[in-house]
């Protein structure tokens, strides 16, 4: 049981750090490309893992840990909300549609591979 938390924790360390590096380098005022990239890659990656029936330990480490922490929902919502609040409604709607369509599409692709 404690090993499950250690596996997820190790994965979470890696995922969060990767997201920080990508976000600080790629997020722009025009669009948070960094957040979009980590959420898209993470969705593809988690699809591959869930679709390939790995052992529980590896699934916890890679899916719940790495992919779970690499992607983020709270920052995504904050970014959408701020675009809307600033009156940039086109960005808010476009970013939302793009993130969800690409994310679910890539998760499906990874899952089916």
């Amino acid at each position, binding site marked *: 049981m404690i090993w499950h938390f250690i596996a997820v924790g190790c994965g979470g360390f890696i*995922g969060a750090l990767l997201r*920080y590096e990508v976000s600080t380098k790629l997020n722009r005022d025009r669009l948070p490309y960094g957040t979009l990239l980590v959420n898209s890659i993470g969705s593809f990656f988690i699809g591959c893992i*869930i679709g390939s029936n790995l052992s529980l330990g590896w699934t916890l480490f890679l899916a719940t840990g790495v992919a779970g922490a690499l992607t*983020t929902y709270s920052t995504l919502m904050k970014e959408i909300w701020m675009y809307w609040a600033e009156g940039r409604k086109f960005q808010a709607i476009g970013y939302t549609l793009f993130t969800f369509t690409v994310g679910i599409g890539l998760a499906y692709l990874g899952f089916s591979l």
Partner: protein
Amino acid sequence: MRKRLYIGVAGAFGASTRLLVGQLLIVSGSFPVATFLVNMVGTFVLCYIVERARLGGSLSPLMVTVITTGFLGAFTTFSAVSVETVELLSDGFFGLAGTYVASSLAGGLAMATLGFSLARRCSS
């Protein structure tokens, strides 16, 4: 360098806490309640902290980054929403998949609104 270490450790705790919520919530049914719940709570807290910090709260910039990018970023997850939606679709639960995405989106934006407005009320 130290900043990266803090963010990584906070991320480890965030992801583990998400696992804990999943294990404590024993819910029957196909709706991914655990992911939904962590995403709602995480979005609310993140928006509250970001807005409090912007309005001159007492947290240092490093602390804000560690909590928001590290802990809350890893606590909440988008990839699980994607893959759970795909699983619901592949099991034939089309209505539930749509409900899941719609409620995650509407709920997340409502939580963001709540977090931002509460922070403003507390700061004034």
